[in-house]
């Protein structure tokens, strides 16, 4: 593609030629020849062949947590003619900031030469980020010839929600399943805590024999242990639009997702199975499973949650009933702004579910965002919220969580209180 400069010089050539003929002046004809000679010399770059580039983008990892940084590497190999001025611009989403290096570079590439650009990005918001396409612009130094093209070499990075450390709190389901885990069940089985004594059976291992008891009863006695099992926990994330308060940077949805990620990590570490139901732009769910891979599946689902207006908390009822195992522990994470929520939760509690409600306090977020707030309105909202929480306390564990504080502290307090009760 010829640039405006070459068009400008070509026009000058024609004008000089016309003036030379009109004025019958040899000097203008010479001028036309001189300009034309420059245009001819500059066209040599184009004659050398086409522009061919091989582009490859690499990253040290494909998923990272919020506020983490990663290096992006862009290798460009010239497989065509030499390029003197090549501009490269790697398009980035607006949520990504560049910390080191630059996504916009100017290169000079000889034939078969390969150069690598590196830049470090900082991802401040969760979500699936698409890096690319790469825009190229080549122009010769005199700017006579310009070529622009785009390479659709895309890369998707998952920015996972932040996971808080929870070491002192264990969220354990009341009902256990048959798999071996870390939760002490009401049955005998494989475990470490003493349960009872029984008569020795021929298949019992020698290390299970209680020698003191055997001496007392004058016959061999065997120890029985409390069976340690796993349970199913289903996390229900409320992304209903009406229940979201806050702006792009701080909102109840992000707090809800962080809580879900933190709980998933902690529960899966205890070898339990975790399921997920997301009520957002779409109704999405993951069947309960355990392991590291399942944790990343949950985090990827959580990273892509967007607020929605169709699926409310009460819609989770039929998904739970039809698709998820009975006697699971349900953890609802919701700011509890909708009036219908408490009724839905009562319905679920009536069934064979062990329910926990974690509610990120929307009033805390709203107070931070609004500079001038009405104290009376705040008191009324708090009163309304207290009523809902009190109602829920009758049937479930309720955690009123201040999103500015670690989730672990709020959970620890409530779980201890519940255990004493």
């Amino acid at each position, binding site marked *: 593609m010829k640039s405006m400069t070459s068009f400008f010089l070509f026009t*000058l050539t024609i004008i000089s030629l016309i003036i030379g003929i009109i004025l019958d*002046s040899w000097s203008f004809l*010479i001028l036309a*020849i001189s300009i034309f000679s420059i245009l001819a010399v500059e066209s040599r770059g184009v004659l050398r062949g086409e522009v061919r580039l091989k582009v490859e983008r690499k990253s040290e990892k494909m998923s990272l947590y919020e506020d983490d940084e990663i290096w992006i590497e862009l290798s460009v190999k010239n497989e065509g003619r030499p390029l*003197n001025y090549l501009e490269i611009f790697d398009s980035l989403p607006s949520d990504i900031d560049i910390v080191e290096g630059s996504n916009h570079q100017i290169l*000079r590439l000889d034939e078969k030469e390969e150069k690598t650009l590196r830049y470090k990005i900082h991802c401040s918001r969760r979500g699936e980020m698409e890096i690319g396409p790469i825009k190229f612009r080549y122009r010769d*130094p*005199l700017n006579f010839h310009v070529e622009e093209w785009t390479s659709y070499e895309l890369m998707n990075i998952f920015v996972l929600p932040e996971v808080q450390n929870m070491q002192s709190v264990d969220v354990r389901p009341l009902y256990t399943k048959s798999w071996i885990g870390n939760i002490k069940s009401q049955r005998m089985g494989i475990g470490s805590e003493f349960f009872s004594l029984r008569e020795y059976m021929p298949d019992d291992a020698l290390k299970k024999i209680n020698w003191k008891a055997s001496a007392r009863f004058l016959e061999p006695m065997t120890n029985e242990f409390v069976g340690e099992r796993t349970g199913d926990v289903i996390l229900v994330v409320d992304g209903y639009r009406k229940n979201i308060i806050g702006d792009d940077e701080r909102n109840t949805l992000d707090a809800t997702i962080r809580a879900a990620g933190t709980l998933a990590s902690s529960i899966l570490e205890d070898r339990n199975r975790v399921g997920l139901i997301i009520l957002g732009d779409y109704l999405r769910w993951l069947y309960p499973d355990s392991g590291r891979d399942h944790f990343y599946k949950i985090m990827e689902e959580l990273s892509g949650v967007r607020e929605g207006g169709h699926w409310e908390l009460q819609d989770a009822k039929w998904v739970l009933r039809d698709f998820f195992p009975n006697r699971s522990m349900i953890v609802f994470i919701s700011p509890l702004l909708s009036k219908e929520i408490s009724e839905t939760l009562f319905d679920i509690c009536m069934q064979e579910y062990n329910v926990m409600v974690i509610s990120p306090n929307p009033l805390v977020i709203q107070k931070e965002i609004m500079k001038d707030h009405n104290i009376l309105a705040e008191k009324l909202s708090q009163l309304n919220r207290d009523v809902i929480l009190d109602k829920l306390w009758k049937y479930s564990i309720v955690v009123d969580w201040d999103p500015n504080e670690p989730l672990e502290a709020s959970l620890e307090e409530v779980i201890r209180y519940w255990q004493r009760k």
Partner: protein
Amino acid sequence: MKEIELDKVVLSASLMIVSLLASLTSYNLQGWWFPLISGFIAIIGLTMKREALIDLGVLASSSSFFYFIHDIPFSYRSLFLLLAMFFLYFGIWSFMRRSITISEIEKDLVRDEGRNFLEEYQEHSAMYYLWSMLLSFLIASIGSVVAIYSYVGPFPSEWAIILFLLFSGGVMLAVYTVVFILPGYFSRKEMPDEEESGI
């Protein structure tokens, strides 16, 4: 003082000298000051980083100079003066545009990572400009001589016109071969692979 600022000083001084030369050439004529004023506009454009002002200033200054000397009698000295002035104007104009491009790139390079590429570009583009101008000057000189012969010289017969056309075509073909084809041929010529050569 930064290199880029030194560039601007040198370029502004060069343009003023060339414009002054153009004014001196036309001192007895009306409007002798026009090349100087136009040159000054181009310098303002360079300071303000406005390409349009640079283009306008250099175009006005050079075209006024060429207009003043349009009826200059033909001689090889006049031809050399004309070509030299044109390439001086063109050289200053292209280096001014380069200076603006570099400052635009620098503005985008907030961080230091791209500075190596920029320095490489600065060095290479300067050489590229000089080499391009040298080649253009060579072709323009040959083309001018050919054109001048056809314009000034009397043609005694039709045979002479045909011979002249053949001669000028041959010259242009030779120039084209030397400038465009041979450098590409030499740069592409590689030693044969061991397998291909059968060693």
